């Protein structure tokens, strides 16, 4: 069967250490993440002829000035404008460009340098509707927006704080095996339940820690990939959807259900054929909604799924095997790449102590918080070529 992204391979992945503070500029973080991914692939910057970059802190610079800064003559550029959905969207755009012969080697990277104050400041002026009809009203930032979704989810489906806690504790266990993760100590249920209140029902460990870091992958044409030593991956399918469903913030707070059937049809597999999921974990409730939207469990049952399924790297269906943003850290827009990095690293068999047995997995993104929800959802299915 000919695939959508015929002639395109994922050939490498790289990640910077995640840090609470760092003097590094976004350019330096993008460079470091990109260099790590190229080195993983056995390629160098001299072979790169395309860039897909996402970074909230990049303006007034942009992907073209990043190309200039790094000295890349580029035949393909993409700048992600969809927050945490951008990593996967950038990967798909880059793959199409390679498939269509526009370029041969694309570094897909995301990085940011954030702390809590600069994160709030950014969100306060994120877009027109937030700036005029949520922030002056006292929305409490992204925490407030997702507290509303969390409470509604709990009320609709009978999920409890303990259910979200189980999810966060499992991700922390995964993070402890990831040398780049910010959090280095286990999370207990008592820690989770009694943490500082942020925006009820959310407490501290439901919220990501804004930090500094970057993630990247490298895509290459099959022609280039053939010259490389390492394993390579295929993108079986990749989908994005925005503002779905239109004019309806609360019936389904995420677009995955809008494309899941098409994603699996195009990928030629079913959710039960996946060996892991790397979901966008800005808040545990959104992970539940992604697991449901991507058909990994039924609607309204993710809280039962995390009760009956071990989602750690030792479990039957590992989720966010590097700890995700909740336990590795949220480096701004890199939050949309951390799962892609992790998925690629796992499929290539380079995940070290946290390696899971896998050949095929799903990665998923979410971003662009606007009037009450994130507008952009994305997901892809990746598979190792044996």
């Amino acid at each position, binding site marked *: 069967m000919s695939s959508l992204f015929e002639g395109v391979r994922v050939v490498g992945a790289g990640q910077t250490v995640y840090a609470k503070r760092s003097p590094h500029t976004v350019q330096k973080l993008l460079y470091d993440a990109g260099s790590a991914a190229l080195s993983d692939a056995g390629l160098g910057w001299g072979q790169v002829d395309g860039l897909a970059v996402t970074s909230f802190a990049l303006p007034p610079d942009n992907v073209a000035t990043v190309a200039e800064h790094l000295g890349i003559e580029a035949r393909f550029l993409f700048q992600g404008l969809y927050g945490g959905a951008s990593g996967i969207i950038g990967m798909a755009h880059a793959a199409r460009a390679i498939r269509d012969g526009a370029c041969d080697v694309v570094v897909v990277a995301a990085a940011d340098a954030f702390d809590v104050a600069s994160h*709030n400041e950014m*969100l*306060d002026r994120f877009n*027109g*509707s937030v*700036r*005029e*009809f*949520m*922030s*002056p*009203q*006292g*929305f*409490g*930032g992204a*925490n*407030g927006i997702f*507290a*509303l*979704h969390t*409470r*509604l989810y709990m*009320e609709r489906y009978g999920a409890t704080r303990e259910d979200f806690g189980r999810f966060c504790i499992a991700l922390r266990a995964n993070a402890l095996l990831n040398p780049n993760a910010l959090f280095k100590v286990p999370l207990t249920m008592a820690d989770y339940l009694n943490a*500082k*209140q*942020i*925006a*009820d*029902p*959310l407490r501290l460990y439901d919220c990501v820690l804004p930090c500094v870091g970057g993630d990247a992958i490298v895509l290459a044409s099959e022609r280039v990939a053939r010259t490389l030593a390492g394993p390579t991956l295929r993108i079986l399918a990749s989908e994005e959807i925005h503002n779905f469903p*239109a*004019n309806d*913030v*609360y019936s389904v707070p995420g677009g995955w259900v809008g494309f899941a059937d098409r994603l699996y049809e195009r990928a030629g597999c079913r959710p039960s054929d996946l060996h892991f999921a790397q979901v966008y974990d800005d808040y545990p409730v959104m992970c539940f909604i992604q697991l449901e939207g991507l058909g990994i469990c039924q609607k309204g049952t993710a809280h039962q799924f995390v009760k009956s399924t071990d989602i750690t790297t030792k479990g039957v269906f590992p989720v966010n095997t590097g700890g995700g943003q909740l336990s590795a850290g949220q480096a701004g827009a890199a939050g949309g790449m951390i799962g892609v990095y992790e998925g690629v690293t796992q499929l290539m068999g380079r995940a070290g102590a946290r390696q899971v047995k896998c050949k095929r997995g799903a990665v998923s993104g979410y971003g662009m918080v606007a*009037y*009450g929800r994130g507008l952009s959802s994305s997901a892809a299915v990746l598979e190792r070529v044996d």
Partner: protein
Amino acid sequence: MSNPTATHVPKPQPRVTEVTRPFWEGANERELMIQRCADPACGKAVFYPRVCCPFCQSPDLTWFKASGMGRIISHTTVFRTHHDGFNGEAPYVFAAVELAEGPCVYAQIPEAPTDERSLIGEPVAVDFIQHGPGRRMPVFRLLN
């Protein structure tokens, strides 16, 4: 985040545009003004203010005074504010309110209980509070 030195920080103010001005002028008159699609085949109520109907893309939107009645879709008690201008009043209840006319409006629910009890589905009515110099802001009050 009760920082006593921060209580005098002004709250973030809306940047009023040509599109949104009738809403804010209405609020100053203690009226909750929203839009309605003038296309008879659609006729849906619209909020936040748009340049066209987001249901049918008709350019013809008219402003009208909403009933001010609604129900709480979901809510949170904000402990950790996003802006120092709100530190003096935290913890406070912030909610998504579904207006009787249909659209969702975000607002504080002053005097609502800040414990963990659910207010989902509770009926509310609009009120207006002073938000800054020359600026009134809609809030909702629990009816029960």
